């Protein structure tokens, strides 16, 4: 995706990596998120991407070597990544294997909710502790929807 220049190929690889991440979620016992990942990302978002790619029908652009600064930035970022790994490796004692809790155990609302695989836990969290952000997200989606409508509408008027 990063190396290839064709956006369609890129999008395909992207789907691949998203599905991979979903698999990792499954491994981490976050089944709900994995499903969500597949549905929203691989299902909706990437389809949207592909749709736009097709719609715009962008050609494969001419190759242009990146600037020195870009290369330097890339190097630095890779270096940082390496540094992070080294830092992680330095402290093996901080990495105990987390134990999994029984998925059916329901948490009480006062104490921090323990990690549970069941979907009910998400419901509890969303409608209690994260009520306000949840509402805000709803608002955000609404705003995004209106924004998209306005964006597409305005340019149509102008182009006519």
């Amino acid at each position: 995706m990063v190396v290839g220049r064709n956006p369609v190929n890129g999008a395909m690889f992207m789907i691949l990596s998203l599905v991979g991440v979903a698999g990792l979620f499954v491994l981490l016992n976050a089944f709900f998120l994995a499903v969500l990942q597949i549905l929203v990302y691989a299902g909706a978002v990437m389809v949207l991407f592909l749709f736009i790619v097709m719609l715009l029908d962008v050609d494969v652009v001419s190759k242009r070597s990146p600037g020195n600064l870009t290369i330097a930035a890339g190097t630095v970022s890779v270096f940082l990544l390496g540094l992070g790994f080294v830092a992680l490796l330095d402290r093996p004692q901080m990495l105990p294997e987390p134990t999994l809790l029984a998925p059916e155990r329901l948490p009480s609302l006062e104490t921090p909710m323990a990690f549970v695989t069941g979907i009910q836990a998400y419901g509890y969290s969303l409608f209690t502790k994260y009520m306000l952000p949840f509402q805000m997200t709803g608002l955000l989606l609404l705003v995004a929807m209106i924004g998209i409508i306005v964006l597409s509408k305005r340019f149509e008027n102008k182009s006519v």
Partner: protein
Amino acid sequence: MDWTKVFLSILLLPLVAALVNMLFLRRNGTTAALVSITAAFFSMVLAMIALFKCTERYSVSFPWLSLGDFQASMGIYYNPMTATMLFVVTFVGFLIHVFSVGYMSDDPAKGRFFTGLSIFMFSMLGIVLADNLIMMFVFWELVGFSSYMLIAHYWNTEEARSACKKAFIMNRIGDFGMLLGIAWTYWHYKTVNLQALEVFSSQPGFVIHGGIALLLICGFIGKSAQFPLHTWLPDAMAGPTPVSALIHAATMVAAGIYFLCRIFCILDAQTLEVIVWLGSGMVVYAGICAFAQTDIKKILAYSTLSQLGYMAAAVGLGFPGLALFHTTTHAFFKALLFLGSGSVIHACHHEQDIFKMGGLFKKMPLTTALFAIGTIALCGVMFTSGYFSKDAIIEVAYFKNTPVFILLILGAFLTAGYMGRLFYVAFLGSPKSQNSEHAHESGFFMLVSLVVLAGMSLIGGYTQGWAPFARQLVSGELDTVHHQIVSLQAEGLFSVLGILPWAIGFAIALLFYGIGAKKDALQNHLPSVYSFVNQKLWFDEIYGFYVRNVQQRFADILNFCDVVLVGGLLVRGTAGLVGVVGMMARSLHVGNIHIYVYWFLAGLIIYWSFAMGYF
């Protein structure tokens, strides 16, 4: 009889009249005049009833504002002083109202004028009745305001424009000191009630604070136009003549003297000394200045200043009763003189220069005769009212303070001199201008008030005829003076001194100026002396210089600093700084998304090193 209601009616009737005039009768001058006169008349009647019937001290007080430690009240304190002044103010005020009907008959803004007169009466009566310093200050300021409005009556003339401003500001300067004095009194004596102060001061162990007294008399200096705030008074002649009469004779300038008498109990010896010298200095200074004036009203204005000097000297010598006595008689004859001059001016079609008058005795004999009565009363000719009051003050000075005595005698001599000059030049001889040739006797309203005032000028000095309660004010002090003079065996001296100054003054004026002179003899023969006198010791010039070159410059410099430093450097500078920061921030926004990525990376590095504890 419920005296509270009586006094309140005296006070509020003019206010009601003023309100009615202001709200409904702006265009209907004649009705407005009627309303004001009615109010003044009933005020006068009630004041007379009080004078004869209310024979005890009377006080009543209403709380007016209370905020923690600060308690202000409005109230009435009635004592012989109040009785006398009430009568004088309402009586002279009423006559001036009557006179105004004739004098202002053809003025288009009669409604406004009578509104002003009524407000003036109201504020003046407020001062007279006030039972505490705060209330007095309230009305004190109101008097200043109403005189401002009255002086500004002919508001389209340049003189009125500057005169009214000057009068108000000069008064304000005096009030500034008075305000500080009141604040100090409030906390030092813990009361501003006049009666309470009287009671306190009579208690043993009471120490008068000199600083307070000095601050308080600033109010007197401003209102009574004493040195160095006297310059507004001659200029105030820009107003209509009845106003000049009201301001000079009965009320405004007398308010200063009245105030001194009211707070006499908290004036200390040094302050009294100051007052004496202010007063006696003014007697001579104003007397000399009067010689260089050709405007009939300005001569009278300086004469007022000089007479105020007598009153101040009396207070300063410790005889407030005599000061009020002179205030009373002065109110009569000075009102007479002003109204007489108004009658002359009216007849001469607003010609005010005495060297353009002349021969008026033929055209308007009654006015001339009445004016003559006023003149002799002012000069203290035997058996007129002025004689009694003025001589009493001179006698006091004789046994109290010799230099002051000499100054006062000199003042009496000067008075006769300039009044003689005025009378000979303006009334005798032959007409010197078109205007004076066509002069005619004034109408009924003007003459009637002149006649009454002339009568009072002649008999007002016989205190035996006063109401007993008011006589308490002067009888004691007159007796003291009499005993002193008898014990010093100076009666003979005073029988001579009672005649000598005015006789010599009149004689010299007659010889020097001659009858019906066309030109000022002093200007002809001694031009240098004349011009010196005409400069009036350069007070106006000094104040003018101060205002133009000191105060205004200072203000301009501060304004410049404000605009340039605060407004320019600080504000624009801050705005500029913000702008620079903004420009720097904008240079980061190059529009290329890759650049933002670099910033992102830089932020990442900083964050990472922070997380690793390198910072």
